[in-house]
């Protein structure tokens, strides 16, 4: 079984840098690391290949600046190989453009299954997985909490507000997984050393049959008009215990329908 995992490399959320005032997007000329959301997909892929008794895990990532450190982390976890699409022309790509580029790279790998995170930690558009699936003509299953593969079928428990949907779909398919779906392993020393020798295929957009005008700022159909700080969280309600605090807490929780 061959699984492709989409891996985004993002500025370290612990030290995210700043927004570019001209483009109103995050500055990405800093060191990038693997988006933690994607480490769940990598772990899931490794477990599925193990369960299948063999196969390979291939990573696909797109960055403007040739960064590979996030890919190295995923390779050290145990992924077998990677494709990095890196091209200055990609700067400013919107979600759909990103999906087009990823779809072309994924297509070349001819996977049985494509895994992605539900959304990235730095962009939060949450639309790229479904767009990639649509572009590739694959079934798209989102918000997966559990994934199992048997024969040519994926069985997915997908999270909903009310509980779970149990979904079956034929392979190949694209599944987006939620954070916490599995416990990502941390890279072992041997994994780190082995990662040095694993192949990372570096492609430009021309290798994927794309023109500079089709990607990046030029190819995007969107413009970021304004960026504003999120409103500060309102302070919570303080319950002072006058003998009835427990009743008021229960009433509050009841109102939230969490009891």
């Amino acid at each position: 079984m061959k699984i492709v995992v989409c891996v985004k490399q993002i500025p370290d959320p612990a030290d995210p840098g700043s927004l570019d005032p001209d483009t109103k997007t995050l500055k990405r000329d800093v060191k990038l690391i693997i988006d933690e959301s994607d480490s769940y997909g990598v772990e899931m892929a490794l477990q599925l290949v193990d369960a299948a008794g063999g196969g390979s895990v291939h990573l696909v990532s797109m960055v403007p600046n040739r960064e590979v450190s996030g890919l190295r982390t995923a390779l050290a976890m145990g992924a077998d190989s990677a494709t990095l699409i890196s091209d200055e022309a990609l700067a400013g790509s919107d979600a759909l453009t990103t999906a087009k580029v990823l779809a072309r790279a994924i297509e070349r790998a001819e996977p049985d299954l494509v895994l992605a995170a539900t959304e990235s930690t730095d962009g939060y558009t949450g639309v790229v997985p479904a767009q990639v699936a649509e572009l590739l003509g694959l079934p798209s299953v989102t918000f997966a909490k559990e994934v199992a593969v048997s024969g040519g079928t994926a069985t997915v428990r997908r999270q909903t507000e009310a509980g779970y949907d149990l979904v079956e779909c034929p392979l190949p398919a694209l599944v987006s997984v939620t954070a916490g779906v599995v416990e990502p392993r941390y890279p072992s020393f041997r994994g780190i050393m082995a990662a040095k020798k694993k192949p990372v295929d570096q492609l430009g957009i021309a290798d994927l049959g794309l023109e500079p005008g089709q990607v990046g700022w030029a190819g995007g159909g969107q413009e970021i008009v304004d960026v504003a700080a999120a409103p500060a969280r309102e302070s919570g309600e303080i319950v002072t215990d006058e003998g009835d605090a427990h009743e008021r807490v229960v009433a509050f929780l009841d109102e939230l329908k969490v009891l």
Partner: protein
Amino acid sequence: MDFEWSPVAEDIRQGIRKLCAQFSDEYWEEKDRNSEFPWEFYDAVVAGGWLGVTVPTEFGGGGLGILEASVIEQEIAASGAGMNGCSAVHIGIFGFDPILKHGSDDLKERFLPSFLDGSLHISFAVTEPDAGTDTSRISTFARKTEGGYLVSGKKVWISKALESQRMLLLVRTAPRDEVARPTDGMTVLFAPIDRDRIDIRPIAKLGRHAVDSNELFIDDLFVSDSDVVGAPGDGFKVILTGLNAERVIVANAALGIGRAAIARAVRYASERVVFNRPIGQNQAVQHPIAEAQTRLDAAELMCLKAAWLFDRGQPCGKEANMAKYLAAEAGFFAADMAVQTHGGYGYAREYHVERYFREARLLRIAPISQEMVLNYIGSRVMGLPRSY
């Protein structure tokens, strides 16, 4: 001049940091309080394949240098594990060198696999009650007998002896007054820790309680000829192997403790509000934190230079000793500052800085005292008259 870290060193830093993040300050506080060996941590290090990082690849190790080993040691300490974490594993990660450099093929074949898979624990047994830094005056004696030696004597400050199956044991095989130079006539044995022949008594001490330090009373312990490391009589040379590497690695433990202490101080000084402002806004609180960071970063530069020289096979006695001196001072300054920043709470176990303080103190006396480092620099580096 290049201050860029290699990708491998960066990945190692991230990898070991993630491993260590599974073990909280509370975990280490509990192990320290109960004097329990941190087996869960040790097993995680083994499972991650981190043992034998510096063992050459032809022996199945990682083939990396002291620079990468330094990164690992510093990250372990900085995670809050401090010396309890470092001492639990660093002999495992760095300690097989004397056997690799001087031991027979037979020794390597018999012990490398269990060393690399973490099942073989090793202690270093050099120091004696009546011969501290003056190593040539050790009195533990190995008497030649059929097929090996019978060893009797006393050793002190032997770490991890309760967990170890073997020790690199320095003995006299010829009396000091019968050899040409005082350092002649000593031999290193890879001796079994045979509890029928060795009485191990843990020493009650100030800190690093999770890893035992012991007195060893050895009575007619048999060590086979096949367990001699290097040539009989050449023990001093064998024991000098890796001494500079040890200095640099221990220096990084001091830096790591300093980093853990500074992180706690910064957090507390930013959060603790007295007189309507965070205490870190007061320069009397802020400046010592900034000074600690400055001292620590300066010490790290010397550590890096020493590791860089060592890994290129260049002489590094001066830099390795200076690194140990500077890092031990900077680490202790940081830990002491962190206690002070926390005020009364700094004395409470709950805030962990008192544990860092107790452990940082250790590194000003071990594995070599600051004074002996200065003796070395004064006489060996600067050519001043030798004082001992």
